[in-house]
């Protein structure tokens, strides 16, 4: 067993884990954060995407020990209490989800995209979310949702400044 310290959604955790324990299992089973889902289990589909120090990673092919000392963000940290994050709200408005299974990974990836590029073109969004598979939507309404959220987040930022 190895001792690790990670901050998940702003909350510090210390734990003893087997070196082979996958980050996704640590998040789901040890911390009870089941919003991060398991898809292909070999790093292709992006369903298990979380942010590690602000960058998207596949938690199904990342070991929990590799996250030692890192800050992890998962879908559970997106909403501000009862208030949905603009991305979540736009996914709902544009029906950017059907079964909802890829949605947490897609939301985390989208939040990373908009952090790096607050005003992406539709083509840029398409290319950026190609890291994540969605089997239900055909992506069209996801692209619309991300663009809608980007617009709202820009407006909110302008209002704030």
């Amino acid at each position, binding site marked *: 067993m190895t001792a690790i310290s990670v901050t998940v959604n702003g909350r510090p955790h210390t734990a003893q884990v*087997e070196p*082979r*324990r996958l980050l996704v299992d640590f998040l*789901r*089973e040890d911390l009870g*954060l*089941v*919003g*991060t*889902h*398991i*898809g*292909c*289990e*070999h790093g*292709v*589909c992006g*369903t298990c995407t979380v942010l590690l120090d602000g960058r998207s990673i596949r938690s199904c092919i990342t070991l929990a020990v590799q996250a030692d000392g890192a800050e992890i963000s*998962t*879908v*559970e940290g*997106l*909403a501000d209490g009862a208030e*949905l994050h603009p991305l*979540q709200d736009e*996914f*709902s*408005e544009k*029906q950017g*989800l*059907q*079964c*909802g*299974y*890829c*949605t*947490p990974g897609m*939301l985390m990836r989208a939040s990373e995209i908009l952090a790096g590029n607050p005003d992406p073109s*539709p083509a840029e*969004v*398409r*290319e950026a*979310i*190609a*890291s*994540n*598979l*969605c*089997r*239900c*939507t*055909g*992506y*069209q*309404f*996801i*692209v619309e949702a991300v663009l809608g959220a980007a617009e709202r987040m820009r407006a909110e930022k302008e209002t704030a400044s």
Partner: protein
Amino acid sequence: MTTVDSTTGDRIAADRAASAPPVRPHSAERRWVGQSIRRVEDPKFLRGRGGYIADRITPGTLHAAVLRSPHPHARITGFDVAAAQAAPGVHAVITGAQAAQLCDPMPDFGPDPTRHTWRCLAAEKVRYVGEGVAVVVADSRYLAEDALELIEVGYEPLPAVVDPERALDAGVPLVHEALESNCAYERSFDFGDVDRDFAEADLVIRDRLRWHRSGGQPLETVGAIADYDPGTGGFVIETNTLSFTSYLFMVAAALKVPVNRLDIRPAPAGGSFGSKLFANKPAVIAAMCARATGRKVAYIEDRVDNISNCDHHGSDRLYDVELAVMRDGTMRGIKIDTIDDYGAYIQFGVGHHGNALAQVTGPYTIGSVRYRVRAALTNKNQQGAYRGFGSEVNNWMLEQMVDKAARELDLDPAAIRRKNFIRQFPYYIPTGNVYDSGDYDKVLDKALELADYEHWRAEQKRLREQGRYIGIGLISAQERSVFSATEFWFWFDEPAAPVTSTPESVSLKVDTTGGITAILYSCAFWGNSPETMVAQFVAEEFDCDPYDVAVVYHGSGDGLPATGPGGSRTTVMLAGAVEGAAGKIKAKARRAAAHLLEIDEDDLEWADGGFGVRGDPERRKTLGEIAIMLHLFKHSFPADMTSGLDESQVYDHPWTTMPSADRKDLGVFYPFMGHACHIPVVEVDIETGAVTFLHYAAVHDCGTLVNPRSLAGHIVGGTAQGIGTALYEEFVYDTDGQLLSSSYLDYLIPTAMEVPELAIGHVETPSPYTPHGVKGGGEGGRMMAPAAINTAVNDALAPLGVRLTELPMTPERILTALRASRKKG
């Protein structure tokens, strides 16, 4: 039911008229049905609180992992499980031979289940790579998988049967010795006067077409959590397949318990696309392990399980087709001869071909059909369900034939289709199934407009001069909805499991405050929108806010008769059940309101969420006011009125008839007929074989729209899957029977870069026979896209004399076809 025979034509017409349900008046005034409201399902999923099956594993639950066969075909000579049993954290190891004692064979609608017996684990021999041979139960999935590696299995390899045509030859190895053949089923049907139509034809178009296997591949695999109570001898199983109250007896039989000792509770599914339909094997394995260990056991497939051992690969067909046409483009008759590679078992029989026969002649007035099917057994994972259930394959086959006919007759692809469109409804096709309504010209017109067809024809010409190969595809095809189970068994004169009822039930409960809870049976959330649909229907009936309706998924224990989703039936069947239950609620509420207002029931009318006095609308009782009285003050009402305000409706399939004894008429089994036209524009790179989309227009008509945005989601999502089927996705077995595409590195699912933005159009031709005129549309774009994209690629390559007849059209297949053409030319 009479048979199709010219001498009894009048009688058939009379029988058919008598069997049709009454034509409904549809109100044009709808408040909620037709609105693209946000889905009521979404908030929990957006927060990561979906409650999928793997999210429901509680501490202390044991985990099962299955050992898969590395051999396509081998006799099992023995097991050594001692080391696995002694491994840390292991609670049990169950071999296939032991499982055969603990459980009876799996539910099977196949032709002869005792001779192609399917079990949850292979008992005597393995029949495909990936088939389970043993299961380990341990404290964690990690420990279970550790122990799998310690199991020694003795295998005596046998030659594998891989090619479906060869599988039917004499003297080849047998997948099931008891069957004495690898042909699990063969039958040929004639509908109408095929020989006359071919004799009178000006021209017969012939082709050989090949559709390789792909599958739903939802991002969430199948899983189950089973708990066994030795006190009652009963199971509670949570699973992401259906709770199937109507077919529960078959699962109970596999577990060797009475039906009333089995409660299956549905968890939301992270996608199904058919592939979780009746996917009971994980549930049976988990339950077997729970009974053996006395503990709660979770078995969640991993991705390799779900690719190689899911029992839900899609169709895998070879077609030899002949289409009889006249010079003016009139299509007279079609002869279809197909071999379908079912893999090692055949759980749904040839229901996929029954499905195809519901719309075998497409939107056309083709007058006769010869349909021969041979179901080949091979050493592959068996077929199950994949969005379209065989009808999407038929659409592709038929449209390739129409396309080829248009080329040979030098007709425009839209013109040849218009020449043959059905324009009078209800219309009985040669197989006996009926199309309730449609307006195919309108759909085609709208699609041509959305596609900017003339512009792209000009572009095609202009870019051809620059050496680029642009193709414009065009198909018009059917989208049958609301299946009746006869399609599974009309093949058999003495079916093994005859079922004709495919009911769906809903209970509505009005609480003391007037709030409404809708209870669904056998229905799992599959990524479709049953909660939104029901909420919109309930809101329409009761003038409430759809977001105030609570929806509950009931388990099979004490559940009402229900079949669950499949065959694009959910929305129509739930609409009927809600309508029935709402009618009963309103009848009781009306009587209660009349009593409370001391007025005759007939003087009341429903308006704005309550009953008011006609002409004096201020005198009224809201549903809430009525409900609290009925819940708490029963003795204020006439003696025969009971407390509470909840009612249920078992809604049976509204229009289905029995097949004729001689099977020349299969009866009505898929009457609510949707329709679509897809027009993709592609560019084919003749150097690399890559296909890219320049434009894509899709127009669907699924009757009255309930939530246009949700339907559009099915159109785009289904089209994305159809793009996978057309260009990328294939479960490839090599000549030895090894599965080469057992991960997403090789099984290629389209990303956002491969799926274009669709121009979507809706046409609404209401069904005269369903509530609000709704038809199903859940199978969406996948019914159309493979056919459409194939015609587009062939249009692009036509100047080179190349025609692709095999899906998926991978770069390799396209380049091979181009090379062959160059050699020939």
